[in-house]
Structures are given as C-alpha cells and as structure tokens.
C-alpha cells in the first residue's frame, strides 16, 4: 500500500516498491463468466466487499552501487474493502507491521484509504475499466522515534485499472486467459521528507498480470480433476519509476532507478476465501538480491454475508453475469 519513495532513504525505495504487493491484493471481481482474483502485485479492476488478512510479503534487500546490502524486509498487511454502490467502493488498509533484518528494525506502516469507481464493464466480453484515488495518511504509523518510522508525509495516488477475459474467443485453449493492469501516480504532499531532509519524488507505478484460469476451464471448456479446478495460475509484474523531484544522482546510492519484480503466482478460489502465493523475482540489484515471496488470504464478505456486511450500502448487488 505504501507506494512512496524517499530519495534519501535508498533502502526504503526497494522496500516500498517490493512490498506494495502485500496490500495490493483486495477484492476479487466477477465480470460475466470471469473471476478476476485478488492478485498480489496489483489490485484487481473492480469493487467488492472483502477482507485481505493477512497479506504477507518478504523481500531480501537490494545491493547498493557502493556494494552495501540493504536490509531484508518483511511485513504483514491488511485491507478491508466495502461497496457503497455496485460501482463505487472504498477501502482502508495498511502495510501493517513491518520488520527488517540486518540490521533489525520494526514499525507500523501508515493507514491508507481509497475510493474506487468502475467506469465501464462489459460482461459479454469480460471487460472492465476502473479508476481510484488513494491517500496514504502521513504519521499514522510508527513515530519518528521508532526503529522503522512511517512516512511523516501524506501521499495522494490516482490510479487506473483494466481487466479483460478472453472467454469470447472461439479457440477453447485461449478462452481461459485473462489480463489485468494497473497504473498509479503517487504524489507526496510535501516535497521534502522531514525525517531526514531528503526529497520526496513523485512515482509512477505500473503492473500487469497474465492469468490462465483453470476455474474457467473447468466450468466452460473442459472438466478438470477436482484438485486443479479452482486454481488460477498467473505471471505478474510490477515496476516503479521515480518521475520528478528526484534530485541529483548520489554516489553510492540508487536514486533514479526503476525497481520492480516479476514472477509466477497461483490462486486458489474457495467458496468464501481465496489464497494466493507468489515468488517475486527482482528485476535488478536495486530491487533485491534474490527471490522474495508474497502471500495473501482474502475473505469474500459478499459471499460470507451477502445480505448484510457484504452488499452495497445503496443499490442492488452488482450483476454477475451476462444478460440472458
């Protein structure tokens, strides 16, 4: 959830970018016959009533240009998403508790809120477009006196999402495929980090998933053995690039580098919950020195309590299927 970068805190750059998947997972989305799972690196393209708890992330620290090694990062995050109308949702969450090794440090991340709106969806073609604005509220996590303080500044992030399933193709082998994408632009509300006087750059974050849904295959193409019928394997990627207010290059530190991870993931879609795991492979030394991991348990509140907690505050529950 924390998608902020601090030029003066190079180790935090990699940590923030590589741990964002911990809270990137929120609601799963259903458009027509397509289930878009709550993916680990980026958010899915719809609104829903869900609870991601816990969302775990581990990423080994990167290697600085001067050869020093950044701390290994772990965190346990959470997020609660609520629909206001069938197309409008809000969420609150956090990267939660974070800790580092080599050297040891720990602290609580800031709280982040988000409002998201589905601009367009086409059930027949399993296509959806949404936009959102999130706010990471500065100083709502651990204080500056903590060993791992939260950012003391607020960051506003406009976001766009897209999702497309290919169930409308004729070729049965291609019909289980789906893609999703997300692009964010994070804008800190102060240009200088009061913790250490470093610059707070704006950051462009962009990611995508390529999914091959065995859940879809089982229902619409070819019946599968039960142990495979609820799985959605995927390949995911996410990158973050500092855009402005980055300042000059600093000897021995990453400043302008794009960081990111790619890797395989798999999701089990249960009746009331989803479990997802991913191996995240850093794209360069600024991102990490070897493979990390992401995992999430996501509870479908719209399925657990569809008539109370899990339905929109206003309006009928979202349509889940094509017209017929």
């Amino acid at each position, binding site marked *: 959830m924390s998608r902020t970068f601090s030029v003066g805190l190079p180790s935090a750059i990699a940590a923030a970018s590589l741990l964002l998947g911990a809270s990137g997972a929120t609601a799963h989305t*259903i458009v027509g*016959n397509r*289930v878009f799972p709550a993916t680990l690196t980026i958010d899915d393209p719809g609104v829903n009533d869900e*609870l991601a*708890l*816990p969302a775990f992330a581990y990423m080994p620290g990167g290697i600085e240009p001067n050869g020093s090694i950044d701390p290994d990062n772990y965190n*346990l995050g959470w997020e609660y998403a609520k629909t206001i109308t069938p197309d409008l949702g809000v969420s609150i969450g956090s990267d*939660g*508790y974070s800790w580092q090794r080599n050297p040891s440090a720990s602290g609580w991340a800031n709280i982040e809120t988000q409002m998201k709106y589905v601009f367009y969806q086409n059930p027949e073609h399993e296509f959806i477009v949404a936009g959102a604005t999130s706010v990471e509220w500065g100083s709502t996590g651990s204080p500056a006196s903590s060993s791992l303080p939260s950012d003391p500044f607020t960051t506003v992030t406009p976001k766009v999402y897209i999702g497309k399933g290919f169930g409308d193709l004729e070729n*049965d082998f291609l019909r289980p495929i789906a893609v999703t994408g997300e692009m964010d632009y994070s804008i800190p509300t102060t240009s200088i980090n009061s913790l250490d006087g470093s610059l707070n750059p704006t950051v462009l974050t962009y990611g995508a998933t390529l999914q091959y849904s065995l*859940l879809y295959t*089982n*229902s*619409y*193409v*070819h*019946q599968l053995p039960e142990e495979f*019928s609820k799985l959605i394997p995927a390949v995911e990627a996410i990158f973050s690039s500092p855009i402005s207010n980055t300042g000059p290059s600093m000897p021995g530190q990453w400043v302008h580098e794009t960081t990111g991870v790619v890797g395989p993931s798999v999701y089990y879609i249960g*009746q*009331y*919950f989803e479990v997802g795991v991913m191996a995240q492979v850093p794209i360069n030394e600024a991102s990490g020195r070897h493979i990390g991991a992401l995992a999430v348990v996501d*509870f*479908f509140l*719209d*399925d*657990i*309590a*569809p*008539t109370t907690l*899990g339905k929109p505050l206003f309006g009928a*529950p979202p*349509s*889940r*299927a*094509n017209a*017929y």
Partner: protein
Amino acid sequence: MRRLLEPLLTAVFTCCLTTLALAHAFLDHATPTVGSSVQGSPSELSLTFTQNIVAGFSGVGLKSEGGGSVPVGKPSISGNTLTARIGHALKPGVYVVSWHVVSVDTHHTQGSFKFTVTP
C-alpha cells in the same frame, strides 16, 4: 500484532462457519462432463454448481453445434444440482449445453459448454 490478529481471525472464521448465506454459483461438474466425448446418447443432463441454486430462476438448454434446438424436460433442482431429461436420443455430433442459474444470494451466473456424442 499477534494479539490483534488472533481475535480478528477468530471472528472471521466464526463468521464463515456460522453464516448460511451462499455465494456465486459456478459450474463445478456435469454429466456429460464439460468438453467430453460420450459413447451413445445420454438420457439426461446433470449440472452441479458450487452453490445451491434457485429453481424458479435457473434453467438449461441443449442445441446441436449447428444451432438446432434439442428439447429437454423441465429441470428439477435439488440443492446445487440441476437435472433435465433429454427429449430424444442424440445423434452422433457436437452439442452445446447452455445454463443459467441464480444462487440463493441472488447472484446470476450463466455459461455454456460442449460435449460430443460418438456412435
């Protein structure tokens, strides 16, 4: 953190176990099976969904791949399974089963699948 997580997880799991409301109904398995080839004409269609479904708003249809409609009997629904008798023996060929259901929490889903009848 542990003191926070344990009661939260307990509450969520308790909610899961005690809530009777069901979820989106997707096709779990069928007879004839999705995408299969069967020898000889099946006498009925049987579709089992991931959730219980509502009889009044759920149905099934059968067509040959060429588009010709095949009569099927009125579907009967028991829990999460819909069955319907096929009106007459099917000739060898490819057939398309189209279904639409409403789960008990009012979510609509629909879909179709093929099976092949061999001599």
